[in-house]
């Protein structure tokens, strides 16, 4: 039978269907119009029309991060494409599998400064895993298939496919499956046997090991293997900002989050460790503080799918390149064979750590001004919603409190912008997550600053029946910046007052805004109203819900290691550092 002849536009839609794509977030425009026509007829793909392309990008990220599947977004050329840039950069930093399709001016116009022309391949080169410019219809199936393969295998990441308008309009034979020719792309997934043995030996000879668990463990789907290695080694574990939920918070060995706002036990265990068992983590500066003084006495086992992460910041004594799930299966088998059911003796190490846990638990004080405590609100959202829910945070204080005070029990339940720190991530990411997992309760925990960057997607949520719950932790300011101004700039609050909360003009009025978008709006100012509002939000599923939690602006995120300092300088409250009793 001869091959079907399709337009390039039809070939894009058909290729996506054949690759199992069921959802696309996007917004049409001139150069992508041809593709939107056959998209309208697709029975397999749900296209969700966003209000701003950045929203499409973060929604695709949220979709991917909640489900582990590929996220897809689409936009037109020029400004449509450049509006995706922040989300692409975000996905690149946090290794989110994402396919970005953009329309481009006709190939005959490329390079002429045509209307809505932007060199989006050039612009995004440093922030994509790879990118393609397609100028011929016959190349489309092969490029889309290759893009999906690159985005989803090895270390995941965003891949951009820029398709010239004439390539969308031309006709070509549709050949499927296409030949994918990527001679330079062969991710290593399986570890060297010798390295596995070396890692096991190092683990069994360590007296102060720590499992340093990073976001790669979630991308690899390695949570069962993590439980196993925790059980086999008996070692304390820390879960980085990107790895919250990779190991349950109720697990007795989990010390919580390390880093700038990590728990004292997590920060200190890493500092005093003699062996970092590094699992899909990358020694980010927000974890290590001053890298030279980070865990100085520790040897390092570093397991990562990306060889370039190994040795980038910290020398690895045992480097292992591979897929974390596969590597851990082998390492666990090796450990099992070597220990024969006997756990290594870490009694002294645990005496020290248990002491830290007892003396320096996570906590917060109720604000002196009598306002609502932001930490309390977030804690109650977590407790009432339970571990099956999904929580997507923006960036700043509310993000750190959400990482600290919600207890995560499963991977992919915590979504946030870790590497890029993108304000405005939360609402669209929650929207994407809710589309991916419609049966789950999905919260956007947002700040009043972040919320004002992307709240236009509430329209998308209301119209497309995506009932997310938004909790605005409204402290009327750019809270984290304000915290730094309090601590490091003598309380000079330069341009951090947003006038949305307590004793202010409340512009915008978030209740009116919720109403305008067809959402249920609730305002909470007192402790006794918190639970009822959360419960009402959970019961309301015929439209999105926005709760304006008007909280105190002086609450700060603790513990804290000031930027650039050694993690030895961790403070659990303002001007209060842990006291070491000579044991160390």
């Amino acid at each position, binding site marked *: 039978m001869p091959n079907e002849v399709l337009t390039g536009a039809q070939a894009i839609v058909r290729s996506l269907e054949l690759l199992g794509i069921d959802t696309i977030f996007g917004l049409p425009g001139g150069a992508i119009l041809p593709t939107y026509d056959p998209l309208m007829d697709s029975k397999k793909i749900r296209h969700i029309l966003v209000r701003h392309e950045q929203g499409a990008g973060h929604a695709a990220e949220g979709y991917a991060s909640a489900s582990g599947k590929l996220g897809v977004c689409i936009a037109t050329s020029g400004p449509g494409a450049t509006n995706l840039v922040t989300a692409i950069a975000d996905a690149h930093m946090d290794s989110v599998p994402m396919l970005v399709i953009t329309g481009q001016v006709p190939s005959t116009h490329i390079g002429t400064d045509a209307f809505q022309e932007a060199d989006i391949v*050039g612009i995004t080169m440093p922030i994509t895993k790879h990118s393609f410019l397609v100028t011929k219809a016959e190349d489309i199936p092969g490029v889309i298939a290759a893009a999906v393969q690159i985005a989803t295998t090895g270390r995941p990441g965003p891949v951009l496919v820029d398709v010239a308008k004439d390539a969308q309009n031309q006709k070509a034979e549709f050949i499927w499956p296409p030949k994918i020719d990527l001679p*330079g792309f062969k991710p290593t997934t399986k570890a060297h046997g010798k390295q596995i043995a070396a890692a096991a030996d190092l683990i069994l000879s360590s007296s102060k090991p720590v499992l340093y668990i990073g976001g790669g463990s979630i991308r690899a789907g390695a949570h069962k293997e993590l439980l196993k290695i925790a059980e086999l080694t008996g070692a304390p574990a820390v879960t980085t900002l990107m790895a919250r939920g990779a190991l349950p918070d109720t697990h007795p060995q989990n010390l919580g989050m390390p880093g700038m706002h990590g728990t004292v036990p997590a920060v200190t265990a890493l500092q005093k460790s003699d062996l970092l068992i590094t699992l899909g983590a990358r020694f980010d500066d927000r974890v290590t503080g001053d890298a030279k003084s980070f865990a100085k006495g520790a040897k390092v086992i570093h397991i990562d799918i990306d060889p*370039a992460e190994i040795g980038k910041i910290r020398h690895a004594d045992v480097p292992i390149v591979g897929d974390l799930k596969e590597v851990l299966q082998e390492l666990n088998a090796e450990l099992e064979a070597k220990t024969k059911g006997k756990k290594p003796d870490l009694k002294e190490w645990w005496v020290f750590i248990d002491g830290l846990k007892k003396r320096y638990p996570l906590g917060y004080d109720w604000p002196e001004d009598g306002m609502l405590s932001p930490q309390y609100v977030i804690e109650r959202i977590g407790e009432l919603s339970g571990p099956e829910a999904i929580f997507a945070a923006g960036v700043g204080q509310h993000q750190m409190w959400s990482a600290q005070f919600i207890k995560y029990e499963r991977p992919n339940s915590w979504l946030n912008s870790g590497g890029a720190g993108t304000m405005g991530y939360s609402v669209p990411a929650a929207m994407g997550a809710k589309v991916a997992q419609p049966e789950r309760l999905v919260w956007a925990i947002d700040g009043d600053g972040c919320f004002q960057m992307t709240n236009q997607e509430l329209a998308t949520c209301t119209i497309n029946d995506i009932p997310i719950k938004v909790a605005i932790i409204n402290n009327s300011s750019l809270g984290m910046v304000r915290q730094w101004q309090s601590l490091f700039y003598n309380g000079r609050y330069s341009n951090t007052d947003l006038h949305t909360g307590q004793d202010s003009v409340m512009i915008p009025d978030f209740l009116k805004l919720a109403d305008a978008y067809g959402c249920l709006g609730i305002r909470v100012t007192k402790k006794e109203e918190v639970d009822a509002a959360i419960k009402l939000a959970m019961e309301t599923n015929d439209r999105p819900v926005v709760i304006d939690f008007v909280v105190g602006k002086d609450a700060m995120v603790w513990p804290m290691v000031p930027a650039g300092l050694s993690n030895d300088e961790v403070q659990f409250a303002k001007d209060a550092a842990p006291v070491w009793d000579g044991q160390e």
Partner: protein
Amino acid sequence: MSRHVLSLLVEDKPGLLTRVAGLFARRAFNIESLAVGASEVEGLSRITVVVQVEGLALEQITKQLNKLINVIKIVELEPEMAVQRDHFLVKVKTDATNRSQVLEAVDLFRGRVIDVVSDSLIIEITGEASKCQAFVKVLEPFGIKELVQSGVLAMGRGSKSMSEKISK
């Protein structure tokens, strides 16, 4: 800091050079010399990059370059295991009084004159970078009007080829 010669086998795709050069720029690695051209395999190009870096940074460069999808293979060419050649074109001022002196230098350095006019010559010279530079030094007193360099080209000694075992 030490000098390293990297040889890259890459797919000849649009934007490839931008990807390689951009990577060096954004990761703050310095390029001393860069030479690009077609290889013996259709569709594949060969890039020779000379970098000045410390040990650990070299490992990062190599690993980051390897992550580029269109980069197929990278080898570091050790000086004793490889031949390295530079190619210079030099336009030098000459007249009837000093032309013979210049031609003598060309002979000594085994260069070739490839263009002659009454008041200047274009000379090509090939060899290790140090030899080419020495030749330029000798010509300097006569007045160098233009200098163009190819960048270092390098190839491993022996019968092995970099494109072996590449299915293409």
